[in-house]
């Protein structure tokens, strides 16, 4: 390279022809800003496939998405109670708990350290039948309620004392999981539990900045 310096001083090291543009051509303007986020498209995209097959697969996809939210594999973190402890908490146990798993996997196929207590499925209406027969006896009914309340309190204590055990030990303990269905008959109250809203959700969901006033 040093040798060519003395020869034509006005010569550049590249010939202009090889670059592909002539002397007088204006160069394309340099970019001052980043390219736009949605640049205008020169050619419109081709329309999507249509047909029975496509529609069926679309319906399948949407169904799968909807049903996967109801499966026990969809894991939601248990909500930490930020409020005061409420009386209704004892009766509302539809919430998931962190230390229970909602389905029963085959533990022999999983490493031992992943073992976690399996949440027993909810009792069906068959369990409530014995209480129906007692309903006409009002006095006896009240005693039943008191007894049931005491029993539930004991169960709750015993459940809190448990550590995370293996599934085999679950069979020995009584039905400790508080699973009574939300039918009004069980609690001997006139109110359907699922309709009761204790106001915990109010204000808890509006975490994003909402400028509109909440009435």
């Amino acid at each position: 390279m040093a040798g060519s310096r003395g020869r034509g001083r006005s010569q550049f090291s590249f010939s202009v022809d090889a670059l592909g543009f002539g002397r007088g051509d204006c160069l394309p303007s340099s970019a001052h800003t980043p390219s736009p986020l949605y640049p205008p498209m020169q050619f419109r995209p081709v329309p999507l496939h249509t047909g029975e097959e496509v529609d069926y697969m679309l319906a399948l996809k949407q169904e799968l998405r909807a049903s996967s939210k109801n499966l026990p594999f969809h894991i939601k973190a248990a909500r930490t109670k930020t409020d005061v402890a409420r009386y209704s908490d004892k009766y509302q146990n539809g919430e998931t708990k962190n230390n229970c798993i909602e389905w029963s996997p085959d533990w022999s196929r999983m490493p031992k350290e992943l073992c976690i207590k399996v949440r027993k499925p909810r009792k069906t209406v068959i369990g409530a039948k014995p209480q129906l027969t007692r309903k006409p006896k009002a006095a006896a009914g009240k005693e039943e309620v008191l007894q049931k309340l005491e029993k539930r309190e004991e169960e709750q204590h015993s459940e809190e004392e448990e550590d995370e055990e293996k599934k085999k030990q679950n069979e020995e303990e009584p039905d400790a999981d508080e699973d009574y269905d939300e039918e009004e008959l069980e609690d001997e109250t006139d109110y359907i539990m699922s309709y009761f809203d204790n106001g915990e959700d109010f204000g808890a969901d509006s975490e994003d900045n909402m400028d509109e006033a909440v009435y």
Partner: protein
Amino acid sequence: MTTQEVRLCGLLLQEHFGNVVEKVGTHLIRSGVLTLRALAHETKLPLDLVKKSLCVLVQHGMCTFGAGRRGPAGPVEYRINCEHVFHMLRYPRYIYTAKSLYGDTGELIVEEILQRGHMTMSSTVKTVADRLTHNMPEGQSMDYSEVVSVFSQLVETHFLQRCPPLASAGSSSSGAVDTPLPVATQPTEPESHPDCYKLPYINLTGQLLQSKHSSHTKKLFSGQPLCGDDDGIYWQVNFQRFHLHFRDQAIISAVSCKLDQSSSEIVRTMLRMSEVTTPAHAAFTQALSANEIFRALLSSYNIARPILDQYLSLLVDDPMEFVGKTGDSGGGMYVVNLHRALANLARATLESVVQERFGSRSARIFRLLLRKRHLEQKQVEDFAMIPAKEAKDMLYKLLSENLVQLQEIPKTPDYAPSRTFYLYTVNQLPTARLLLQHCYKTVGNLIERRLYETKENKRLLEKSQRIEAILASLQATGAEAAQLTEVEEMITVPERQQLESLRHHINKLDSSENQVDETIFLLKSYINSTQASR
């Protein structure tokens, strides 16, 4: 794992399993291999949630575990199988294929197993039979034996396979020798197990009868109830088999587009005959003689022997090289060139992408470069028959998009620009990888846009769901038409229009995802085929 792949995995996990599993899964993908404690510590989630998430992932086969770096005595390490997560995008296609091959029963079997990860045969049969019975009109029911027969067919054709047994220590049933856990880097192949496709014997006669009561169906069993003789034998979907089927379908449809229906039927017959004899990664099928092909052709196609010979020679001469001739015995020995077919299909995809994004003249330049490998700028202009200025413009645009590469060949040791050849070139494999990453990014964008649209209109969607629920309950209890119309009018007309347009957008986005997934499949098969042949 590229950024786009990790992002897409996260979005898919979130869609199917929720935020917790997404967090755990994404972190595990980024870190490679981790132990349980490390994972819990780094994601700052409670240990129980991490355990639950790992259970879900292991159940679905997306996470493998094994003895870690410290050997069998150390903590167990987990890693995520990203390919398996991407398969979630293709679930509708698997289910539709099962439906087209084995009817509604097959469809439901595959759907159940896909949603649950892996299941025993008896539980699958029971669940599917119950579901079918519920959908049938009153009084009819689905016999368990029918479902068992469809299940056996699925296993015989290898669409379902047994889950590989774990050589795991600590299985409390056998107190025998502690075999160490398999090393995390080498998962046991399901096909290495000799009983991979052996059906267990289960005693499953009977059916779920529907009683005549309209509201509740009483579950009555006729015959013997299920006995779970097959505890511990789990079945999973054999994704590789489905992929081979899709690949065959792609080849057949390409042949029918390029040539005609009869030649595609011939190729279909050839592929069907070599289904069981050809290993999964073979470059071409077993050689089949023309006599065999003629015998195997279904009579409905109505192809005479000399016509068959003509078609075969036409297929061999076709530049796409789907079929090759390997010998002359038995009337001519023919093979289907699987890898070459995949390469040609991938090339067609690349060319079509360039054509749709940059126009047909740019596509002409692209095809030229694919064929002629290295060309100078002047030669490109001459061969493509495009004026110099436009050709230069198009070339530079393709170069900026990385679809075309520049190769410098110096004449002198110093790379002086006036004394260097600059050659444009296109390499098919790297360009296919680039396009695959673009596809992953596209699907990620589509999913995010759909989530955004759903979130924007959340209030409206909830309102419409509530009103539908009210309508359904009113109709069930038998209300008059006036009440129904009154409830329907709770949604105003502009709201209805908004809902309609929202539904239209979401359908379009979902449909696009399915279509992009087809391209992903094709490009991934091509890339895998090049890796296998090395």
